[in-house]
């Protein structure tokens, strides 16, 4: 099967004043198309750093990363942005919607930047919002939505432009268990029905339970 | 208070960039105001000083009504004796009597109409700089000498030189013809063409003789360097005069209301601009004050929960604003005073000033005034405005309820 993500010997060192903090130490990871991977591990084990680096939000100190045939470690900031725009969707712990835009506009935003025609993007955004169960709430702004609803908007935004890969960083951390359950079902549904590849960092056992593959991280290394 | 102060100080530096920018705005305002006000006041001092010094004097004793209607008949009797009396009784030295008339002045070729002033030969240089500006020849030898001193511009127009004779033809106090022929002994050059053309001087006794004054004169001129004490000198002079119902003592601003009013107009316009400027600066920094309170709502909630009263927190917020303002003002005052001190020492000249200086008879560079008033009135205005601005966010704290406040991020 074709690999969407391929990390080899990825290393990340932060400097905090005089102290060097090793966030990633020779992490290796391969994710195939259609996979649903769960990264677990204690706080500070490097989960978020690894996701950020895969998403091109952060650059590794050493090692090579290939995402959807792009060699990230060789790309410029602007190329990275272009890559994210077309190939990667993000879901964050703290929802991270644009508060001044409505649910529909938040979902449309990425397509707008991709240059999708107005009519088409509105149609697609509505359809995806319906799919995540938010029909009728399209014109609400994030502060008018519950946490679970906001996170659904975030998922809709992440998958609307058919990315090769969706990266989710502790997506259920701020949700109650029923809402969290629904969200996982939704992501799993997207994975099975549309073949969207997911890499999720979490220490929520309910998420891990649904994963096709569970990996755990300790001290910047992937151990299993 | 010590603990509150320390807390306020630390809070200020939680967001160093914002605090620094706000301080810059205040300090900038202070520097600007100190510089402009200093310059403005310095310019006024200069204008008043030059006007007072060159001819007019700080005070004048005149006959009632002479100022608005300078007729030869509204005169002071026994002027020389009265002048001596004022000198003796006040102890002021720079006092001199004058008599003013008007004549057609003719040389061999030309005729001009000018003012004729009779002056005390021994005292005039104490109240006016004109005797010192005699560039050719000399000033008068005695009060009854048959001599005339004229300005350089008039000498040119009359085409006369030292030693040439001038014929004066005017009307005497009683309306009869006043006539005299006098040699030019001195030519003064003040730099102001109008002044140099509009007046000739003759000794006072000669004047009284020619214009049939019978011992009368028109003004007793008193000069003192410190024109801010004009009112004090005035009361001394009034006392020395005794009961003289017909006479008035006028200060420089009454003698030349135009100058005073021009200064007032300029100063009013100046203050209008300063207030607008400070208001703009205040709006500019009001947001900083507001934000520093709003972003700490949660923190204030905790403080309220711990038993702080809204008043205590309000005081803390006010104190922060006050410290910030005073700190910035201190910097602004230091810079402003340094700039003004520099120009006080070296003088400030700007484009077009030389021409202006000539026309208004001023030195060609300005020294900013270095008084407490000039330095502190601008910063005081800023402090007043910013204190009002700080009051608003401090008042808002009263509206906080601890539970809701803590729930905020």
């Amino acid at each position, binding site marked *: 099967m074709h690999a969407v993500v391929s990390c080899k010997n990825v290393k990340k060192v932060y400097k905090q004043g005089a102290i060097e903090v090793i966030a990633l130490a020779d992490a290796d990871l391969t994710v195939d198309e259609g996979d649903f991977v769960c990264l677990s591990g204690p706080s500070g084990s490097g989960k*978020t*750093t690894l996701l*950020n680096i895969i998403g091109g*939000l952060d650059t590794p100190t050493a090692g090579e990363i290939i995402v959807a045939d792009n060699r990230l470690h060789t790309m410029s*900031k602007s190329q990275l942005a*272009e890559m*994210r*725009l077309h190939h990667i969707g*993000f879901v*964050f712990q703290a929802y*991270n919607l*644009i*508060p*001044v*835009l409505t649910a529909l506009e938040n979902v449309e*935003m*990425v397509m*707008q*930047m991709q*240059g999708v025609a107005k009519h088409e993007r509105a149609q697609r955004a509505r359809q995806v919002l319906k799919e995540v169960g938010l029909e009728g709430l399209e014109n609400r702004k994030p502060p008018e939505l519950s946490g679970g609803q906001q996170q659904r908007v975030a998922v809709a*935004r992440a998958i609307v432009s058919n990315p090769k890969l969706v990266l989710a960083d502790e997506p259920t951390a701020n949700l109650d268990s029923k809402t969290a359950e629904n969200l996982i079902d939704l992501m799993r549904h997207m994975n099975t029905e549309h073949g969207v590849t997911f890499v999720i960092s979490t220490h929520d056992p309910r998420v891990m339970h649904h994963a096709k593959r569970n990996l755990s991280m300790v001290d910047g290394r992937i151990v299993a | 208070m010590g603990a509150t102060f320390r807390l306020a100080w630390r809070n200020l530096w939680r967001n160093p*960039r*914002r605090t620094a*920018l706000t301080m810059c*705005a205040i300090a900038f305002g202070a520097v600007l105001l100190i510089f402009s006000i200093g310059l403005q006041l310095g310019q006024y001092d200069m204008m008043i000083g030059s006007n007072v010094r060159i001819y007019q004097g700080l005070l004048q004793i005149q006959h009632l009504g002479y100022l608005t*209607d300078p007729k030869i008949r509204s005169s002071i009797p026994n002027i020389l004796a009265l002048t001596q009396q004022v000198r003796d009784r006040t102890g002021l030295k720079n006092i001199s009597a004058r008599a003013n008339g*008007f004549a057609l002045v*003719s040389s061999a070729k*030309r*005729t*001009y*109409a*000018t003012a004729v002033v009779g002056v005390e030969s021994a005292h005039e240089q104490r109240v006016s700089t004109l005797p010192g500006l005699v560039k050719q020849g000399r000033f008068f030898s005695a009060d009854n000498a048959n001599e005339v001193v004229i300005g350089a511009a008039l000498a*040119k127009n009359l085409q006369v030189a030292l030693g040439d004779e001038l014929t004066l033809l*005017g*009307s005497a106090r009683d*309306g009869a013809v006043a006539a005299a022929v006098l040699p030019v002994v001195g030519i003064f050059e003040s730099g102001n063409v109008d002044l140099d053309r509009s007046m000739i001087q003759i000794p006072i006794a000669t004047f009284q003789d020619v214009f049939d004054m019978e011992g009368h004169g028109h003004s007793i001129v008193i000069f003192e360097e410190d024109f801010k004490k004009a009112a004090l000198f005035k009361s001394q002079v009034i006392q020395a005069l005794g009961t003289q119902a017909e006479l008035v003592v006028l200060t420089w601003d009454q003698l030349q209301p*135009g100058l*005073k*009013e*021009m200064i*007032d*107009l*300029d100063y009013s316009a100046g203050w209008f*601009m300063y207030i*607008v*400027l400070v*208001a*703009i*600066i205040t*709006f*500019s*920094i*009001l*947001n900083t004050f*507001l934000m520093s309170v709003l*972003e700490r709502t949660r923190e204030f909630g905790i403080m309220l929960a711990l038993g702080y009263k809204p008043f205590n927190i309000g005081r803390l917020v006010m104190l922060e604003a006050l410290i910030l303002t005073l700190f910035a003002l201190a910097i602004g005052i230091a810079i402003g005073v340094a700039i003004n001190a520099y120009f006080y020492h070296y003088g400030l000249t700007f*484009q*077009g000033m030389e*021409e202006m200086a000539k026309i208004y008879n001023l030195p060609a560079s300005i020294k900013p005034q270095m008084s407490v008033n000039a330095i502190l009135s601008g910063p005081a205005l800023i402090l007043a405005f910013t204190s009002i601005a700080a009051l608003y966010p401090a008042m808002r704290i009263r509206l906080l309820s601890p539970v809701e406040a803590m729930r905020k991020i």
Partner: protein
Amino acid sequence: MNKGYTLVAALAWRNLWRNPRRTTVILFAIVLGAWAMIVMAAYARGMSKQVFDNAIDNLTGHIQIHAPGYLEDPVIDYAFDSAQTTLKTALSDPEIAQFSPRVRVPAVVASERESQGVTLLGIDPVTEAKMSFLRKSIVAGNFFVSARDPGVIIGKKLAERLETALGRRVVIMTQDAHSKIADRGFRVVGIFDAMMDAQETGFAFISLGAARQMLNLENRVSEIAIKLHDPAHTDATLERLKLQLPALDVRAWYKLDMLAKLFQDTWEGSTFVWHLIVFLAMGFGIVNTILMAVFERTREFGLFQALGLKPGFILLQVWLEALLLLIIGLAIGNLVAWLSVLATGDGIDVSAFGQGLEMAKLSKVIPFVLTARDLLIANAVVLILGLLTCLYPAWRAARLVPAHAITRI
């Protein structure tokens, strides 16, 4: 990035109103600043225009022609033939709206009781009526009825000083073309009330015919004052006249009334300095406010980058937000300024500063004059400098590292 402009615009607009209080406060600063700039510019322009109008009206005109030497020594010796053909040809220039020949010499006016030095003007009643303040300022009696009218017109203040009145006789003395004293009695036929005291006391007007006869001038005059259709063409017309009249001294108003020119230049310069100062005062606030807005949205900017939007998009978004803020502020500021200028009607009454105005060459009411050019300059200063300074917060926002920005709470 040719896509997403509507998105950027929508984001900028909505973000601007995310914190309405903060935006309102800074808008106050911008509105007040714009208002202050425009109103001060209109005030300065009003004063400038008034000084110009007064100078032109006060016998100066736009251009004057004299015999060489007259301006340094304004006596009858420097007169020229007003009937010469070269002059007549030159004066037929299409730019010239009106010209008026004058005899202008120093003289003495004497009543039975007092005498006073004045500038005596012999004028052509027909041409002078359209030239200077005189015709429209007569408050008693009447203007000259013919070019040889035997009467004299004097100012109200001069009449008081001479203790004379309409219908009474005064004697005018001056030097004639043969350097002899000419004196002649004139009946006061008109009294004028001018804006400035100096005009009322400094001049006496007789008809050109009477002046020529009294001074033995035949066809000669001292000066020709010229008014143009369009003052903006002064310099071009001046050059043409100079070329055609090489033997005469042709000068523009700004060489004749240098003080007026100096005032104009000073105001022009100080208005621009004022703009810069006002901008600085509000600039600190604008930058601080936008910076605040940027820093509290750090996470959002991180998110934009995570979603694949380039830093340029973020820079543009913040910049556009600043632009909208400036445009709204300016729009309201312009409107308020325009309304306040309208509200002042003819201008602000500064007659409380009476004689000071005369020294400053102003009238008792200073009009506000709004010109398109001044409006443009004020708005351009705010917009251009505002956008330049807002590059800083915009650049800060674009420079945020996405991974850090997004995890920061």
